[in-house]
């Protein structure tokens, strides 16, 4: 049912506002990783290149678990990108 490399992206808080969207679907060539996805998003330039550059402080969760940048991504994965948390 799912496109073999379609990822369900979610954005939260400051990044949701900066990107002007809370979700989107992105198709990546396989084998995909978090690093590859971030490079693709940075390739959009502007706020994407700025917010997702190596020096910025943000987290990536794959299927609701915080993940490293070498984490492999599979079709249908839920990938969330968000700033450091500030609850409590």
């Amino acid at each position: 049912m799912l496109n073999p490399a379609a990822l369900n992206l979610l954005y939260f808080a400051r990044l949701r506002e900066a990107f002007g969207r809370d979700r989107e679907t992105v198709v990546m060539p396989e084998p995909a990783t978090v690093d590859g996805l971030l490079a693709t998003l940075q390739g959009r330039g502007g706020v994407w290149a700025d917010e997702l550059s190596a020096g910025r402080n943000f987290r990536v969760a794959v299927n609701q678990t915080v993940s490293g940048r070498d984490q492999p991504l599979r079709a249908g994965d839920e990938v969330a990108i968000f700033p450091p948390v500030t609850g409590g």
Partner: protein
Amino acid sequence: MAERDRIAVQTAAFDVGAETARLAALDRGIGAIASFVGLMRDQNNGDAVQAMTLEHYPGMTESALADIVAEAHGRWALMGTTVIHRVGPLHPGDPIVLVLTASAHRGEAFAACEFIMDYLKTRAPFWKHETTASGGRWVEARDSDDNAAARWNR
């Protein structure tokens, strides 16, 4: 049978007395209940704050809190826990978060309660947006919270 652990993410306020009574009734071997209530302050980083909105990541929030509680159970002999975190619009003085830990003796209850708060502050996906006289802003994460969480790994 009553659940030993209760985790909730909700817009409504919580009832500290009722939550304490729930834990106390779980087991007659409970001798200690430690708790923490986090409240919205009317100031942050030197600015007056008029209102706040708490955003979260539904699904991941609950599983992150469950992971933190499970880790607390692995470290201390806890007989029950409660974690309730509010989301949505809040105002100064409003309660934001409640953590309760029940144990036979007070040392374990205190340590587990502080541990859960420290981990919640750095691992649970909540974000605060606050309104000041000069407009809205996202609250920045604090190094002091990272340091508080890191001391449990020493």
